[in-house]
């Protein structure tokens, strides 16, 4: 027997051993298998719509994977109860007032469940706790809201037109208002702004409708992403415009309040004209609520995954010449 032959069993043994290490290492590293050894607690959430979330999808907290969705089943009329297993090591950081939402890992990746928020005033979550779900807007929801907003804005503008007509006609006590230049200017500016905003919002709604119809067609994702700078710019311009409206409206309200304190001024007279006063109050209320709502919508849009791409391309769009509206 020569040396090579004597070493043979050793080499074979070594060969098999390393092979088995690959196998066992592979099994332990594979997927979520090694996580089965970690201790976990189960928490639940109630969703109206899980948008394709599946058992086994990951659960993130502060961007770190801390567990998986373990079960999905219907609850009540049409709600879905989602059970998730969360590692105990993350338990202390998640508070009872933390919220849950569904998002996407990457552009076309798997759905993920995101736990966020929570304050240290509340206790940490325990086995079986229910986490609140924040209502998220789907793109359809968002477009519907924007369109409704647009209608509101048109209504407001109509109101203002009516007021300004009356004011121009100088009917009754309201005619005195014409002499107060500052108030007149303010109302004039507000009217112009709102008309402008209405036009912009109409454009926005149009762009978004176009964009969403494009999305519904299969295989046009890439197209949508290329043309998205147009949509993005519309959204951005609208935000600025509507902020302006809000500013103007706030100033207007302040002026009115100041004027209200002084009954001798023209505006004081205006406020005592019951009909016109009620009109104006309603208008201002509408204006405030609608601008607030629009703010919310646009913030929701920022979190919506489909529009996330627009914001990413913000820098690039800024460099390029702005596409014509």
């Amino acid at each position: 027997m020569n040396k090579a032959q004597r070493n043979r069993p050793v080499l074979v043994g070594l060969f098999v051993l390393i092979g088995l290490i690959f196998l066992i290492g592979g099994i332990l590293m594979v997927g979520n298998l090694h996580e089965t050894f970690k201790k976990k607690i189960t928490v639940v959430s109630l969703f109206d719509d899980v948008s394709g979330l599946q058992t086994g999808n990951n659960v993130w907290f502060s961007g770190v994977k801390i567990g998986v969705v373990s079960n999905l089943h219907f609850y009540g009329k049409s709600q879905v109860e989602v059970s998730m297993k969360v590692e105990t090591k993350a338990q202390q950081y998640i508070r009872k007032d933390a919220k849950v939402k569904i998002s996407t890992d990457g552009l076309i990746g798997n759905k993920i469940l995101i736990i966020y928020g929570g304050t240290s005033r509340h206790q940490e979550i325990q086995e079986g706790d229910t986490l609140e779900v924040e209502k998220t807007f789907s793109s359809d929801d968002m477009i519907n809201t924007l369109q409704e907003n647009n209608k509101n804005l048109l209504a407001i503008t109509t109101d203002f037109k009516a007021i300004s007509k009356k004011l121009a006609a100088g009917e009754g006590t309201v005619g005195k208002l014409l002499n107060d230049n500052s108030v007149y200017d303010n109302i004039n500016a507000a009217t112009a702004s709102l008309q402008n905003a209405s036009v912009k919002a109409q454009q926005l709604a149009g762009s978004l409708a176009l964009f969403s119809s494009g999305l519904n067609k299969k295989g046009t994702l890439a197209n949508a992403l290329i043309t998205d700078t147009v949509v993005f710019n519309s959204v951005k311009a609208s935000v600025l415009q509507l902020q302006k409206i809000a500013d103007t409206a706030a100033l207007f309200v302040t002026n009115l309040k100041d004027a209200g304190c002084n009954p001798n001024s023209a505006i004081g007279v205006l406020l005592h004209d019951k009909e016109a006063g009620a009109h104006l109050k309603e208008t201002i209320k509408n204006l405030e609520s609608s601008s607030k709502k629009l703010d919310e919508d646009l913030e929701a849009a920022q979190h919506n995954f489909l529009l996330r791409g627009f914001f990413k391309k913000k820098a690039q769009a800024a460099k390029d010449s702005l596409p014509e509206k």
Partner: protein
Amino acid sequence: MKQFHPVTKVKGFATKQSVRLSEKTMAKTAIANNFLTDLADVLLFITQFVRETFSRNSEVKEFFRQCFQIGYKSLPLVSITGTIMGLVLTIQSRPVLIKFGAVTMLPGMVAVSLIREMGPVITALICAGKIGSGMGAELGSMKVTEQIDAMEVSSTNPMKFLVVTRVWAAIIMVPILILYADAFGILGSWAGANIKGDVSFVLFFSQAFGSVRFMDLLPAVTKSFFFGAVIGFVGCYKGYNAGRGTESVGIAANSAVVLASLLVIIVDMIAVQITDMLI
């Protein structure tokens, strides 16, 4: 077909198998190579393999020698193939994934396709080439130069000494070689990902194994045992049944490779169907 030997001679094949093979070698090949008699031969061969496997006094030393030959000696070939497989797969699929903006899915995709399909099948085909032809040629030349007869007459069961050890060595070594190929394939894929891009080793591996599920690994490992069995059986059967004359050694080696490769693909198809049904 007028004389249908195998069926009539089924009784007591422990000794008669070798007798029949000798007779077949002497007979005219045209008559001996009948499909049905071949089929019966294969059944006899497998039956005797099972019998001898469970008989006493196993040939441990020869088994280890074969493990060395089949496993250890194939390692360089399999690891080179595996590495290149992973490398090429990565480089080829990268542009497509970039187009979809899903380049982060590359390690997972490559790992899953390597472990589920590419690793087992390509390694098995490589082994069919190396091990199958080796067995076919070695046993074929032993048959032609009467070494198998010599064992038989010195009261050593050649089926047990030559075939059982080789087939079992193949059944155990081929899956291990496939594991090596998978491991080297993922390593090669990491290298491929780093030619164009820049991914850290740890990130690549956590992404790769993040998308592999246990049910990807289990059917792959299971079917690789069958690949080993197919390669071992075909190689030994073809060698053991080589005809007379030196050219039959070449024929045995060649047909061992062809048949083993074909059967590997067929077994793979069946395995995929079964896996698909079960999961």
